[in-house]
Each structure stands twice: as structure tokens, then as C-alpha cells.
């Protein structure tokens, strides 16, 4: 028995010692799968062109990233979390409760959410109202909510194709889903007669949640000409020979309509930095500096090739100035 006890105690001590002794030389980034390609690109460049170690970038989804980020301060928590939506009040509160302290918010660009289909199909033109009616769990009819009866697009509006509604979209953990619900469904639910914000997505098989892997949706659209997919603009950019995007409210998604906000389903991309870690983790400030450099997020920056839609010049400078001041955010900055 004593041998066993000693082994268990020894193992515990060894494991704890490894945890404590781990002096963090390496930046840890978590968060949104939409921001992941940009963030890991910057991480690689950072590792290749400076003397610092390449940061570890993990794709956990915006919500998952903020959960890890807000677990507290210290070497076992991430230094940066990426998000394809702003931090929520509840998440910020959790951060504060766990003693994370000042959080610096950095907005670095835009992303459009596209509604795409197989390129061989007739061009599709949708409104946000039609989209909502296609994906909602319930629709208002004669003043009350009934289960969504629409099976074919043409039942929603005669101008739409006479095809079955089959939509591949992001799962609930995804920031893309949050943004879609907010920018499409909640934005028009009042006008449609829902009597308040409505964002429940149907679960009767017409909307298929397809995991965090947007490539899967792209492949499905390549195989199934009747299907429509919802994903980030960068995936459209990469697969232009295969897919075409529907215009929403008469506006085609492209970099200029997305950055001007004319295309209605666009969102801002963020990352959040833990101020308490700035002096502790080597290279953290330099990583953010590189991220915000003109050669990354500028009009001709590398991230643009990956599908990022840059901020206008004045906004970029404002963001850099805000970062230079290391200005932490307060709860009053938050809407949701």
C-alpha cells in the first residue's frame, strides 16, 4: 500500500511541477474558426521573421475561445482570443469575475457571410425576409406563429426557383451562425410580424448544421445543385470556379460592398488581448503589432489574399492608436 501511495504522490508532484515550471515563451491564441486562418498566418510570419517562438493558434469557435480566455489569468490561460463577433456582456462579466482584468479589444477587418450555391445554377437573388422565412423554425401567419410550412423556395415567393429548400449552414457553436441570426433573422423579424426578435432555426431537415468545417459545405454544394450554403466570404473567394453567391437585398457580396456595409450580411472581426499578460508572455505586444501592420491588414496586405476585407484607412489608424494606448474596454462599450 505504501508503495502505491508514494507512486501516486510522486506522480501528482511531478505533474504539478511541470505545470508550474512551464515558463511561457510561447503565445497562446484560441477562438473563432473564421479568424483562425488570419491569425495562424500572422503567427507563422511572426515565428519565421522574429526570434520569438511561433504562437500556438487553436480554433475553438468564438464562444469556446472566450470561455477559455475568461478562465482567469496565468500561464495556463490563453493570451489572445479571436472572435467573429463582439464579446457579450455576460462573457465580459465572467472575465471580470475570474479576475482577468483589463481586456483590449482589437477590431481588424470585416468578413461577409455569403449565401452560395453551385455555380451552374441560375443566379439567385434573395432578400433577408425570404431567407428568414426559409430557415426559421416558425413563421408568422395570420398573426400567430406556426411551424414553418415552406418546403420549396417558390412557396415563399413566386420569383424564387421551384426547388426544395436545403440549406447547409454553421452549427450553434459558430460565430458565423450567431452573426447570421443577428444580421438576417433578428434584423427583419419585427417587420415580418414575429413581434420581437426571432432567431430559432428550423430542425426539420431543411437546414443542415454542417460543423465548423466550411470546406464540407463547399463540397456538398459542388455535389448537390439544389443545395444552398451559408459560410464566410473567404471560402467563396477560394472556390469561385465552383460556387456563386446569391445577392442579398439586391447587393452582391464583394470586398467593396462588404467593407462599406452595403451588403447587409457582413460583420466585424476581432481579437481580444489580456492586458495582464502583456509583460509576462514574451512577444505578445510584438505579435499584435505585426497583426495590425499595414503589410497584414492593409489594403494590399497578405491577409487580403486569404479573404479578409480590410478596414478603411482611417479606421485602421484609429485601431492602431487605440492599441498603442493599451486601452482596456468597459462594460458600457457592449451592446449585447
Amino acid at each position, binding site marked *: 500500500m505504501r508503495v502505491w501511495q508514494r507512486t501516486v504522490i510522486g506522480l501528482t508532484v511531478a505533474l504539478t511541477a511541470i505545470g508550474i515550471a512551464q515558463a511561457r515563451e510561447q503565445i*497562446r491564441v484560441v477562438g473563432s474558426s473564421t479568424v483562425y486562418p488570419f491569425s495562424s498566418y500572422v503567427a507563422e510570419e511572426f515565428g519565421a*521573421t522574429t526570434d520569438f517562438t511561433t504562437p500556438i493558434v487553436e480554433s475553438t469557435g468564438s464562444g469556446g475561445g472566450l470561455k477559455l480566455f475568461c478562465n482567469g489569468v496565468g500561464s495556463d490561460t490563453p493570451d489572445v482570443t479571436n472572435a467573429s463577433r463582439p464579446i457579450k456582456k455576460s462573457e465580459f462579466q465572467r472575465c471580470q469575475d475570474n479576475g482577468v482584468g483589463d481586456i483590449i479589444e482589437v477590431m481588424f477587418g470585416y468578413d461577409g457571410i455569403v449565401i452560395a450555391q453551385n455555380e451552374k445554377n441560375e443566379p439567385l437573388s434573395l432578400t433577408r425576409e425570404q431567407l428568414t422565412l426559409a430557415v426559421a423554425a416558425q413563421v408568422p401567419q395570420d398573426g400567430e406563429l406556426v411551424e414553418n410550412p415552406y418546403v420549396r423556395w417558390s412557396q415563399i415567393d413566386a420569383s424564387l426557383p421551384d426547388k426544395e429548400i436545403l440549406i447547409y449552414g454553421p452549427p450553434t457553436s459558430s460565430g458565423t451562425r450567431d452573426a447570421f441570426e443577428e444580421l438576417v433573422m433578428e434584423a427583419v423579424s419585427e417587420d415580418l410580424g414575429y413581434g420581437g426578435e426571432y432567431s430559432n432555426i428550423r430542425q426539420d431537415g431543411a437546414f443542415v448544421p454542417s460543423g465548423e468545417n466550411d470546406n464540407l459545405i463547399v463540397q456538398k454544394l459542388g455535389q448537390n445543385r439544389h443545395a444552398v450554403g451559408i459560410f464566410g466570404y473567404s471560402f467563396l473567394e477560394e472556390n469561385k470556379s465552383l460556387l456563386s453567391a446569391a445577392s442579398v437585398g439586391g447587393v452582391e457580396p464583394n470586398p467593396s460592398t462588404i467593407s462599406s456595409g452595403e451588403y447587409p450580411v457582413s460583420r466585424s472581426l476581432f481579437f481580444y488581448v489580456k492586458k495582464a499578460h502583456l509583460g509576462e508572455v514574451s512577444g505578445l505586444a510584438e505579435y499584435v503589432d505585426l497583426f495590425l501592420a499595414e503589410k497584414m491588414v492593409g489594403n494590399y496586405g497578405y491577409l487580403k489574399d486569404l479573404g479578409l476585407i480590410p478596414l478603411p484607412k482611417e479606421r485602421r489608424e484609429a485601431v492602431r492608436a487605440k492599441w498603442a494606448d493599451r486601452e482596456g474596454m468597459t462594460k458600457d462599450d457592449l451592446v449585447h
Partner: protein
Amino acid sequence: MDLSQADSTRLRRRYRAEKRFKAYCIAALAMSVLFLVVFFADMISQGYPAFVQAEVRAEVTFSEQTMEIPPLSVPEAFRPLVSRGELRLLPEYARNNPTVMGTTETRWLLAKADIDQYLKGKDVNLPEDVRRTVDRLYEQGQLELNFNTYFFANGDSKLPELSGIFAALMGSVAVLALTLAFSFPIGVMTAIYLEEFARDNRFTQAIEVNINNLAAVPSILFGLLGLAVFINFFGVPRSSVLAGGLTLGLMTLPIIIISTRAALRAVPDPIRLGAFAMGCSRWQVVRDHVLPVSLPGILTGTIIGLAQAMGETAPLLIIGMIAYIPEAPSGIADAATVLPAQIYTWAGMPDRAYVERTAAGILLLLAVLISMNAIAVYLRKRFERRW
């Protein structure tokens, strides 16, 4: 007369039934072989182009100006061709070798993924003038498809042409070594105790049921367990080799215990009794007589368990090993990624050039798994004993 006729009809019917059944079995076999062939053919046809990579021979100039703006190091016509992964390293190279300043060298440089894909006949968006340059240089032998050393020497990269499987392979080796070191001794000792020492009572039966049950538990639960116990409680660094090795070790443990018990049970009792008759203690019996003859079975089970751990992704997702980790681990507390995790990451990349890398990664993983299973079969055949 009537009777024998009835007999022979029945006999014929039985023969027919047997033939039918045999045909069904052959059809089933043919079906699974067909699936396998289709899968392999698809993977090989997609993956083999990744084993060569386009390289371009260009004159590289080092000057004050190229230190500031690396693309200026190569002649203008080559700028759309050369990978940024090469160019960004040039200033540092010049800083470390100051003698090259002001000189020009001719070098083979890695070409961009687009160029590589174009040369391999894939459908890419290249401007017409770049296409012409590429065709011309290819004819002149300035642009070649060479064996892809990058793929085997590099870690992950966001530039598809630069990305490789090395870091993930090393990660897999390190994680599996830890898994083995953790689960083999504990698993074998548990099995020996249960099989050779323990009495058969309610308690040991309960343990046996639980172990069998654990072997069937979905692997994602081991990931959650690893997160709760190793990372959150013991403070093992997230994404580290240690966290991965321990988690996969937990997963492999029941498989090793079960296969070891089966191997021990296959040793005939007369061997034990003979040794006891000579006055051996239980430990001596196990050490000198039972273990040596059951070792092939134990090793086979262990290798199969490890092969399963090698292909595992779900639990590693939970403990943060599916991430952008481009460097091979140099210690057990270092972050690492593993082969299936790398394949998963590449499969999710929007860039089309990753498709062939994904398939090549799968081929490599399959090759490793096949060799592990082949070793298991060899051990079984080589040391098998019949009584």
C-alpha cells in the same frame, strides 16, 4: 423408390442453399474489397502529386534594398512565382552571412502553390502573362517539379507550398511513446494480477465488466476525462505531448488489459502446474513460464491498441492538440500536433492546394498503420505456439 427420390431432392436443395450462401459471402467480400480499392485509388490519385513540388531557379541578389523589401531579391519576372516563405527568410540569411551582401547567387527556390498546381494541371486562376512565363521557364528547365523534401521536413504552414507533415509525425511518435510508457506496464500488470493472482469473486467480476465497458466507451469521453483530470486538476499544459500521451494512454489501457488477459488465458494450465510442482512461487511461474509464452499475444494487442490511438482525433480536439502548431515538440511539456490532427486541419483549409497535402497525409498515416499492423501479424506468426 419414392423415399430416395424425396431424399435426393432435399439433398439438391441443401446443396443449392449452400451454394447461394457461399455466393452471398463472396459478394460481401467483393463489396468490401471494392470499397477499399476505391478508397485507396482515390487517395493515391489525389495524394501522389504532393510528393513532387515546383521549384524555380532564380538569381538572388542581396543588397541594402532587398533587406528592406525581400521580393526585390529576385528578377521582376520571377516575383509572381517565388514563394513568400523563401523570400521572407532572405534578410535573415543575409544578416547571418554578411559576406553575401552585394552579391548575386543562383538558387533553386520554392515556387508558389498556384504555380505548382498549374504545373500539375489543376484549374487555377493565373493571369495570362504569368501563365506564359511559367510555360517558358518550364520548357527552359528553370522551373521543375522535384521531389518534395519540404513535405517531409517542415511543419504546418499557412503557405500550402511550405507546409509539411514532419512536426505532426514527430508529435505522433512522441505521444505514442508516452502512451506506450504509460499504458503498457499498468495494463500488463493489471492483467497479470486479475488473471494469475486475483480470486474470482464479485469484486474482480465487477472490475472485469467495467474494463470491458471502458474499451467500448467513445473516445471523446477520454478527451473530456483528460481535460478534467490532467489539464484542469494536475495542471498539465494544454496541447502538450504529456496531456496527449496520458489521455490516449487511458484510452489504450483497457485494450491492453483485455488482450493481455486473453494471451495469459491461452497459456495451458499444465505449464503453470508443472512449474508449481517444481516449487516455483507464483511470481516465478508468471515471470519465467507464463509471460514468455504469452508475450507475442500481449505485444500484438498492444500494437493494435497503439494503432488505434495513433488514428485518434476526437479526444485530442478536447485537449487542444488540433491547432496551428508548426514545430516538432522537443520535450513532453511542449505543444504538439499529431498526424490525424494535421490531416483534419488541412482538410478544413480553404486553399485548394491543401487537397493533395491532405491526401498525402492520409497515405502516410495509412502507411504507418499498415506497418504497425504488419509488425503485429509478424510477431504473432513468428512466436506463435500451438499446444
